Protein backbone atom coordinates (compact mmCIF):
# COMPACT_ATOMS: atom_id res chain seq x y z
CA UNK A 1 0.00 0.00 0.00
CA UNK A 2 0.93 3.60 -0.46
CA UNK A 3 3.29 5.52 1.75
CA UNK A 4 2.70 9.02 3.00
CA UNK A 5 6.02 10.71 2.79
CA UNK A 6 7.64 14.07 3.42
CA UNK A 7 10.91 14.88 1.68
CA UNK A 8 13.30 17.52 3.02
CA UNK A 9 10.41 19.76 4.00
CA UNK A 10 11.04 23.36 4.76
CA UNK A 11 8.61 25.65 6.49
CA UNK A 12 9.11 29.39 6.66
CA UNK A 13 6.74 31.59 8.60
CA UNK A 14 7.08 35.31 9.08
CA UNK A 15 10.52 35.32 7.44
CA UNK A 16 11.89 32.78 9.90
CA UNK A 17 12.65 29.13 9.22
CA UNK A 18 10.49 27.01 11.52
CA UNK A 19 12.17 23.85 10.33
CA UNK A 20 14.12 22.74 7.30
CA UNK A 21 15.33 19.52 5.77
CA UNK A 22 12.70 17.48 7.58
CA UNK A 23 11.78 14.07 6.21
CA UNK A 24 9.44 11.32 7.33
CA UNK A 25 7.74 8.23 6.01
CA UNK A 26 4.37 7.13 7.35
CA UNK A 27 3.39 3.64 6.18
CA UNK A 28 -0.16 2.24 6.46
CA UNK A 29 -0.99 1.40 10.03
CA UNK A 30 1.81 3.64 11.26
CA UNK A 31 1.70 6.31 13.92
CA UNK A 32 3.96 9.31 13.78
CA UNK A 33 4.41 11.11 17.09
CA UNK A 34 5.74 14.64 16.80
CA UNK A 35 7.57 15.92 19.83
CA UNK A 36 9.42 19.13 20.52
CA UNK A 37 9.20 22.26 22.61
CA UNK A 38 6.58 24.97 21.98
CA UNK A 39 7.16 26.76 18.71
CA UNK A 40 9.23 24.00 17.21
CA UNK A 41 6.80 23.62 14.33
CA UNK A 42 4.66 20.63 15.28
CA UNK A 43 1.43 22.41 14.36
CA UNK A 44 2.99 23.83 11.21
CA UNK A 45 4.06 20.35 10.14
CA UNK A 46 0.54 19.00 10.68
CA UNK A 47 -0.91 21.89 8.69
CA UNK A 48 1.59 21.13 5.93
CA UNK A 49 0.50 17.50 5.97
CA UNK A 50 -3.14 18.60 5.72
CA UNK A 51 -2.41 20.90 2.80
CA UNK A 52 -3.51 24.00 4.74
CA UNK A 53 0.03 25.34 4.42
CA UNK A 54 2.35 24.95 1.49
CA UNK A 55 5.95 23.95 2.13
CA UNK A 56 8.53 26.54 1.09
CA UNK A 57 10.84 23.69 0.18
CA UNK A 58 10.61 19.95 -0.27
CA UNK A 59 7.47 18.01 -1.04
CA UNK A 60 4.78 15.84 0.50
CA UNK A 61 4.01 12.66 -1.39
CA UNK A 62 1.11 10.27 -1.20
CA UNK A 63 1.80 7.07 -3.09
CA UNK A 64 4.68 8.85 -4.81
CA UNK A 65 2.54 11.75 -6.05
CA UNK A 66 2.73 15.25 -4.65
CA UNK A 67 -0.38 16.14 -2.65
CA UNK A 68 -0.37 19.59 -4.27
CA UNK A 69 -1.42 18.03 -7.60
CA UNK A 70 -4.77 16.89 -6.20
CA UNK A 71 -5.54 18.89 -3.05
CA UNK A 72 -9.22 17.87 -2.93
CA UNK A 73 -8.43 14.17 -3.17
CA UNK A 74 -5.95 14.63 -0.35
CA UNK A 75 -8.47 16.55 1.76
CA UNK A 76 -10.93 13.72 1.23
CA UNK A 77 -8.65 11.11 2.73
CA UNK A 78 -7.66 12.94 5.89
CA UNK A 79 -9.09 14.19 9.14
CA UNK A 80 -7.38 17.22 10.60
CA UNK A 81 -8.02 18.14 14.20
CA UNK A 82 -6.44 21.46 15.06
CA UNK A 83 -6.65 23.65 18.13
CA UNK A 84 -10.21 24.66 17.28
CA UNK A 85 -13.09 22.26 17.71
CA UNK A 86 -15.47 23.56 14.99
CA UNK A 87 -18.45 23.15 17.29
CA UNK A 88 -21.41 25.44 16.62
CA UNK A 89 -22.89 26.75 19.87
CA UNK A 90 -26.50 26.72 18.63
CA UNK A 91 -26.46 23.22 17.14
CA UNK A 92 -26.87 20.14 19.29
CA UNK A 93 -24.07 17.63 19.71
CA UNK A 94 -25.76 15.21 17.30
CA UNK A 95 -26.44 17.95 14.72
CA UNK A 96 -22.86 19.18 14.88
CA UNK A 97 -21.56 15.69 14.34
CA UNK A 98 -23.96 14.60 11.61
CA UNK A 99 -23.25 17.69 9.51
CA UNK A 100 -19.53 16.99 9.29
CA UNK A 101 -20.09 13.27 8.88
CA UNK A 102 -22.58 13.80 6.04
CA UNK A 103 -20.30 16.32 4.34
CA UNK A 104 -17.60 13.66 4.26
CA UNK A 105 -20.00 10.98 3.14
CA UNK A 106 -20.05 9.23 6.50
CA UNK A 107 -22.80 7.40 8.31
CA UNK A 108 -26.18 9.13 8.46
CA UNK A 109 -26.66 7.98 12.05
CA UNK A 110 -23.44 8.65 13.91
CA UNK A 111 -24.43 6.85 17.12
CA UNK A 112 -21.31 4.71 17.09
CA UNK A 113 -19.13 7.81 16.98
CA UNK A 114 -21.01 9.38 19.88
CA UNK A 115 -20.71 6.13 21.81
CA UNK A 116 -16.96 5.93 21.17
CA UNK A 117 -16.39 9.15 23.08
CA UNK A 118 -19.20 8.71 25.62
CA UNK A 119 -21.31 11.50 24.15
CA UNK A 120 -24.55 9.55 23.73
CA UNK A 121 -26.15 11.13 26.76
CA UNK A 122 -25.16 14.61 25.62
CA UNK A 123 -26.49 14.13 22.06
CA UNK A 124 -29.36 16.61 22.41
CA UNK A 125 -27.35 19.25 24.27
CA UNK A 126 -26.54 22.46 22.37
CA UNK A 127 -22.85 23.07 21.73
CA UNK A 128 -22.73 26.21 23.88
CA UNK A 129 -23.40 24.18 27.04
CA UNK A 130 -20.47 21.83 26.54
CA UNK A 131 -17.33 22.07 28.61
CA UNK A 132 -13.97 22.40 26.87
CA UNK A 133 -13.29 18.69 27.30
CA UNK A 134 -16.71 17.72 25.99
CA UNK A 135 -16.25 19.95 22.95
CA UNK A 136 -12.93 18.23 22.32
CA UNK A 137 -14.59 14.84 22.55
CA UNK A 138 -17.19 15.97 20.02
CA UNK A 139 -14.39 17.06 17.67
CA UNK A 140 -12.75 13.66 18.15
CA UNK A 141 -16.03 11.88 17.43
CA UNK A 142 -15.82 13.29 13.88
CA UNK A 143 -12.86 10.97 13.32
CA UNK A 144 -15.09 7.96 13.86
CA UNK A 145 -18.25 9.33 12.22
CA UNK A 146 -16.69 9.51 8.76
CA UNK A 147 -13.82 7.22 7.84
CA UNK A 148 -10.58 8.73 6.57
CA UNK A 149 -7.24 7.10 5.97
CA UNK A 150 -5.04 9.69 7.60
CA UNK A 151 -5.64 11.33 10.95
CA UNK A 152 -3.71 14.49 11.75
CA UNK A 153 -4.17 15.32 15.41
CA UNK A 154 -2.80 18.47 16.98
CA UNK A 155 -2.71 18.10 20.77
CA UNK A 156 -5.80 15.87 20.71
CA UNK A 157 -5.75 15.21 24.44
CA UNK A 158 -5.94 18.84 25.58
CA UNK A 159 -8.76 19.18 28.09
CA UNK A 160 -9.59 15.47 28.08
CA UNK A 161 -10.10 13.54 31.31
CA UNK A 162 -8.24 10.32 31.97
CA UNK A 163 -10.98 8.02 30.67
CA UNK A 164 -11.31 10.02 27.45
CA UNK A 165 -7.57 9.84 26.79
CA UNK A 166 -7.97 6.06 27.04
CA UNK A 167 -10.88 6.18 24.55
CA UNK A 168 -8.76 8.25 22.19
CA UNK A 169 -5.91 5.74 22.38
CA UNK A 170 -8.37 2.91 21.71
CA UNK A 171 -9.83 4.77 18.73
CA UNK A 172 -6.35 5.31 17.31
CA UNK A 173 -5.47 1.64 17.84
CA UNK A 174 -8.67 0.60 16.01
CA UNK A 175 -7.93 2.99 13.19
CA UNK A 176 -4.39 1.63 12.80
CA UNK A 177 -5.53 -1.96 12.96
CA UNK A 178 -7.66 -1.20 9.89
CA UNK A 179 -4.63 0.10 8.01
CA UNK A 180 -5.20 3.77 8.86
CA UNK A 181 -2.33 6.03 9.77
CA UNK A 182 -2.09 8.82 12.26
CA UNK A 183 0.23 11.74 12.97
CA UNK A 184 -0.05 13.21 16.46
CA UNK A 185 1.59 16.20 18.06
CA UNK A 186 1.39 15.80 21.77
CA UNK A 187 3.03 16.65 25.07
CA UNK A 188 1.15 14.13 27.16
CA UNK A 189 1.88 10.46 26.95
CA UNK A 190 -0.58 8.77 24.62
CA UNK A 191 -0.61 5.02 24.81
CA UNK A 192 0.35 4.09 21.24
CA UNK A 193 1.90 0.82 20.12
CA UNK A 194 5.38 1.13 18.52
CA UNK A 195 5.11 4.73 17.29
CA UNK A 196 7.58 6.36 14.94
CA UNK A 197 8.99 9.38 16.72
CA UNK A 198 9.90 12.61 15.03
CA UNK A 199 11.48 15.22 17.21
CA UNK A 200 11.45 18.80 16.02
CA UNK A 201 14.22 20.90 17.40
CA UNK A 202 13.29 24.43 18.38
CA UNK A 203 15.96 25.95 16.19
CA UNK A 204 16.47 23.94 13.05
CA UNK A 205 19.10 25.82 11.06
CA UNK A 206 18.59 25.33 7.33
CA UNK A 207 22.17 24.21 6.69
CA UNK A 208 21.79 21.07 8.84
CA UNK A 209 21.74 17.77 6.97
CA UNK A 210 18.42 16.00 6.71
CA UNK A 211 16.86 15.01 9.98
CA UNK A 212 15.48 11.52 9.74
CA UNK A 213 13.57 9.92 12.56
Amino acid at each position, binding site marked *: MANFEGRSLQCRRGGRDVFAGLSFVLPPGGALVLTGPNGSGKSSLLRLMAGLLRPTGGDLLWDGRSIATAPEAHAGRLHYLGHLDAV*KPVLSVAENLSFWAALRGGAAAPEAALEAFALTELAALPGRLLSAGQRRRLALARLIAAPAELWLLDEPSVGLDHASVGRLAAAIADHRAGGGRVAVATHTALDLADPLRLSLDALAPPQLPEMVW
Partner: protein
Amino acid sequence: MVSGFLLVIARDLRLALRQRADAWLAVLFFVLTAALFPFGVGPEPNLLARIAPGIIWVVALLAVLLSLERLFLADFEDGSLEQLLLSPLPLELAVLAKVLAHWLTTGLPLIAAAPLLAVLFHMDLAGLGVLLLAMLLGTPTLSLVGAVGAALTLGARRGGVLIPLLVLPLYVPALIFGVGATDAALQGFAVRPHLLLLGAVLLVMLVVTPLAGAAALRQALE
Protein backbone atom coordinates in the same frame (compact mmCIF):
# COMPACT_ATOMS: atom_id res chain seq x y z
CA MET B 1 -20.80 17.21 -4.54
CA VAL B 2 -24.34 18.50 -4.98
CA SER B 3 -25.35 16.95 -1.68
CA GLY B 4 -22.43 18.65 0.06
CA PHE B 5 -23.50 21.97 -1.45
CA LEU B 6 -27.04 21.47 -0.14
CA LEU B 7 -25.73 20.36 3.25
CA VAL B 8 -23.81 23.60 3.70
CA ILE B 9 -26.86 25.65 2.72
CA ALA B 10 -29.09 23.67 5.08
CA ARG B 11 -26.62 24.09 7.91
CA ASP B 12 -26.31 27.84 7.43
CA LEU B 13 -30.08 28.22 7.21
CA ARG B 14 -30.50 26.23 10.39
CA LEU B 15 -27.89 28.38 12.12
CA ALA B 16 -29.69 31.51 10.96
CA LEU B 17 -33.00 30.13 12.17
CA ARG B 18 -31.55 29.46 15.62
CA GLN B 19 -30.00 32.94 15.73
CA ARG B 20 -32.93 34.87 14.37
CA ALA B 21 -31.71 38.15 15.83
CA ASP B 22 -29.08 38.43 13.08
CA ALA B 23 -31.61 38.20 10.25
CA TRP B 24 -34.05 40.54 11.97
CA LEU B 25 -31.27 43.05 12.49
CA ALA B 26 -30.82 43.61 8.76
CA VAL B 27 -34.55 43.98 8.09
CA LEU B 28 -35.13 46.30 11.04
CA PHE B 29 -32.14 48.39 10.01
CA PHE B 30 -33.57 48.54 6.49
CA VAL B 31 -36.99 49.77 7.60
CA LEU B 32 -35.85 52.08 10.41
CA THR B 33 -33.12 53.81 8.40
CA ALA B 34 -35.46 54.39 5.47
CA ALA B 35 -38.06 55.77 7.89
CA LEU B 36 -35.57 58.47 8.90
CA PHE B 37 -35.54 60.08 5.46
CA PRO B 38 -38.91 61.84 5.72
CA PHE B 39 -37.59 63.49 8.88
CA GLY B 40 -34.44 64.55 7.06
CA VAL B 41 -35.79 65.79 3.73
CA GLY B 42 -39.26 66.84 4.85
CA PRO B 43 -42.65 65.12 4.44
CA GLU B 44 -43.47 66.49 0.99
CA PRO B 45 -45.16 63.48 -0.77
CA ASN B 46 -44.01 64.26 -4.31
CA LEU B 47 -40.40 64.57 -3.29
CA LEU B 48 -40.50 61.35 -1.24
CA ALA B 49 -42.20 59.46 -4.06
CA ARG B 50 -39.50 60.57 -6.47
CA ILE B 51 -36.52 59.60 -4.32
CA ALA B 52 -38.11 56.39 -2.99
CA PRO B 53 -36.33 53.93 -5.35
CA GLY B 54 -32.96 55.47 -4.57
CA ILE B 55 -33.53 55.42 -0.83
CA ILE B 56 -34.77 51.83 -0.83
CA TRP B 57 -31.72 50.70 -2.81
CA VAL B 58 -29.15 52.60 -0.77
CA VAL B 59 -30.62 51.42 2.50
CA ALA B 60 -30.87 47.83 1.26
CA LEU B 61 -27.22 48.01 0.29
CA LEU B 62 -26.25 49.24 3.75
CA ALA B 63 -28.37 46.58 5.41
CA VAL B 64 -26.55 43.88 3.44
CA LEU B 65 -23.24 45.48 4.35
CA LEU B 66 -24.16 45.29 8.02
CA SER B 67 -24.61 41.53 7.84
CA LEU B 68 -21.48 40.76 5.84
CA GLU B 69 -18.96 40.56 8.64
CA ARG B 70 -20.60 37.47 10.14
CA LEU B 71 -20.59 35.65 6.80
CA PHE B 72 -17.24 33.91 7.27
CA LEU B 73 -16.03 35.27 10.61
CA ALA B 74 -17.93 32.88 12.88
CA ASP B 75 -16.74 29.86 10.89
CA PHE B 76 -13.22 31.25 10.81
CA GLU B 77 -13.06 31.75 14.56
CA ASP B 78 -14.44 28.39 15.63
CA GLY B 79 -12.41 26.33 13.14
CA SER B 80 -15.34 25.33 10.91
CA LEU B 81 -13.74 27.07 7.95
CA GLU B 82 -10.63 24.90 8.28
CA GLN B 83 -12.83 21.82 8.27
CA LEU B 84 -14.78 23.09 5.26
CA LEU B 85 -11.54 23.67 3.39
CA LEU B 86 -10.46 20.10 4.20
CA SER B 87 -13.78 18.54 3.20
CA PRO B 88 -14.23 16.78 -0.14
CA LEU B 89 -16.53 19.63 -1.23
CA PRO B 90 -14.51 22.10 -3.34
CA LEU B 91 -14.08 25.32 -1.38
CA GLU B 92 -15.45 27.31 -4.33
CA LEU B 93 -18.79 25.50 -3.99
CA ALA B 94 -18.76 25.91 -0.22
CA VAL B 95 -18.34 29.67 -0.72
CA LEU B 96 -21.23 29.73 -3.18
CA ALA B 97 -23.40 27.75 -0.77
CA LYS B 98 -22.65 30.14 2.07
CA VAL B 99 -23.40 33.17 -0.10
CA LEU B 100 -26.68 31.63 -1.22
CA ALA B 101 -27.65 30.99 2.40
CA HIS B 102 -26.65 34.56 3.22
CA TRP B 103 -28.89 35.88 0.48
CA LEU B 104 -31.81 33.71 1.60
CA THR B 105 -31.51 35.05 5.13
CA THR B 106 -30.67 38.69 4.30
CA GLY B 107 -31.57 39.64 0.71
CA LEU B 108 -34.89 37.83 0.56
CA PRO B 109 -36.27 39.37 3.79
CA LEU B 110 -35.27 42.80 2.46
CA ILE B 111 -37.24 42.16 -0.72
CA ALA B 112 -40.20 41.11 1.40
CA ALA B 113 -39.97 44.35 3.40
CA ALA B 114 -39.53 46.59 0.35
CA PRO B 115 -43.27 46.96 -0.47
CA LEU B 116 -43.78 48.35 3.03
CA LEU B 117 -41.25 51.09 2.31
CA ALA B 118 -42.72 51.73 -1.13
CA VAL B 119 -46.09 52.41 0.49
CA LEU B 120 -44.45 54.47 3.24
CA PHE B 121 -42.83 56.69 0.61
CA HIS B 122 -45.99 57.01 -1.40
CA MET B 123 -44.20 55.50 -4.38
CA ASP B 124 -46.36 54.94 -7.46
CA LEU B 125 -47.24 51.27 -7.05
CA ALA B 126 -47.02 50.78 -10.82
CA GLY B 127 -43.25 50.66 -10.27
CA LEU B 128 -43.43 48.17 -7.40
CA GLY B 129 -43.22 45.08 -9.60
CA VAL B 130 -40.09 46.33 -11.32
CA LEU B 131 -38.58 47.42 -7.99
CA LEU B 132 -39.02 43.91 -6.62
CA LEU B 133 -37.76 42.28 -9.81
CA ALA B 134 -34.69 44.53 -9.81
CA MET B 135 -34.06 43.70 -6.15
CA LEU B 136 -34.44 40.01 -6.93
CA LEU B 137 -31.63 40.37 -9.49
CA GLY B 138 -29.60 42.91 -7.54
CA THR B 139 -29.52 41.69 -3.93
CA PRO B 140 -27.78 38.39 -4.82
CA THR B 141 -25.08 40.55 -6.43
CA LEU B 142 -24.77 42.49 -3.18
CA SER B 143 -24.23 39.23 -1.28
CA LEU B 144 -21.77 37.92 -3.88
CA VAL B 145 -19.65 41.08 -4.04
CA GLY B 146 -19.78 41.42 -0.27
CA ALA B 147 -18.60 37.84 0.22
CA VAL B 148 -15.33 38.61 -1.57
CA GLY B 149 -14.81 41.60 0.71
CA ALA B 150 -15.66 39.57 3.79
CA ALA B 151 -13.25 36.81 2.75
CA LEU B 152 -10.44 39.25 1.99
CA THR B 153 -10.67 40.97 5.38
CA LEU B 154 -10.84 37.76 7.44
CA GLY B 155 -7.30 37.71 8.70
CA ALA B 156 -7.14 41.47 9.24
CA ARG B 157 -7.57 43.11 12.58
CA ARG B 158 -10.82 45.12 12.65
CA GLY B 159 -11.69 43.53 9.33
CA GLY B 160 -15.33 44.49 9.76
CA VAL B 161 -14.43 48.14 9.35
CA LEU B 162 -12.50 47.40 6.17
CA ILE B 163 -15.38 45.62 4.44
CA PRO B 164 -17.38 48.79 3.58
CA LEU B 165 -14.27 50.47 2.19
CA LEU B 166 -13.64 47.53 -0.11
CA VAL B 167 -17.19 46.71 -1.04
CA LEU B 168 -19.09 50.00 -1.33
CA PRO B 169 -17.36 51.17 -4.54
CA LEU B 170 -18.11 47.79 -6.10
CA TYR B 171 -21.80 48.15 -5.24
CA VAL B 172 -22.15 51.16 -7.55
CA PRO B 173 -23.11 49.24 -10.74
CA ALA B 174 -25.87 47.28 -8.99
CA LEU B 175 -27.11 50.52 -7.43
CA ILE B 176 -27.18 52.44 -10.73
CA PHE B 177 -29.00 49.76 -12.70
CA GLY B 178 -31.31 48.85 -9.82
CA VAL B 179 -32.49 52.42 -9.30
CA GLY B 180 -32.46 53.00 -13.06
CA ALA B 181 -34.89 50.13 -13.67
CA THR B 182 -37.40 51.40 -11.12
CA ASP B 183 -37.10 55.00 -12.26
CA ALA B 184 -37.60 53.92 -15.86
CA ALA B 185 -40.73 52.01 -14.92
CA LEU B 186 -42.11 55.01 -13.03
CA GLN B 187 -41.47 57.37 -15.94
CA GLY B 188 -42.67 54.98 -18.63
CA PHE B 189 -39.31 54.20 -20.23
CA ALA B 190 -37.99 50.77 -21.23
CA VAL B 191 -37.10 48.66 -18.20
CA ARG B 192 -35.50 45.75 -19.99
CA PRO B 193 -31.99 47.16 -20.57
CA HIS B 194 -31.57 47.94 -16.87
CA LEU B 195 -32.74 44.51 -15.81
CA LEU B 196 -30.52 42.84 -18.39
CA LEU B 197 -27.51 44.74 -17.11
CA LEU B 198 -28.38 43.79 -13.53
CA GLY B 199 -28.59 40.19 -14.67
CA ALA B 200 -25.24 40.48 -16.42
CA VAL B 201 -23.56 41.80 -13.27
CA LEU B 202 -25.11 38.92 -11.32
CA LEU B 203 -23.80 36.34 -13.79
CA VAL B 204 -20.29 37.78 -13.70
CA MET B 205 -20.25 37.74 -9.91
CA LEU B 206 -21.59 34.18 -9.84
CA VAL B 207 -18.31 33.19 -11.50
CA VAL B 208 -15.95 35.65 -9.82
CA THR B 209 -17.08 35.24 -6.22
CA PRO B 210 -16.50 31.50 -5.78
CA LEU B 211 -13.03 31.76 -7.29
CA ALA B 212 -11.94 34.97 -5.58
CA GLY B 213 -13.65 34.11 -2.29
CA ALA B 214 -12.08 30.65 -2.10
CA ALA B 215 -8.63 32.05 -2.92
CA ALA B 216 -9.02 34.68 -0.18
CA LEU B 217 -10.18 32.09 2.36
CA ARG B 218 -7.20 29.83 1.58
CA GLN B 219 -4.94 32.81 2.12
CA ALA B 220 -6.61 33.63 5.44
CA LEU B 221 -6.19 30.06 6.68
CA GLU B 222 -2.47 29.76 5.93
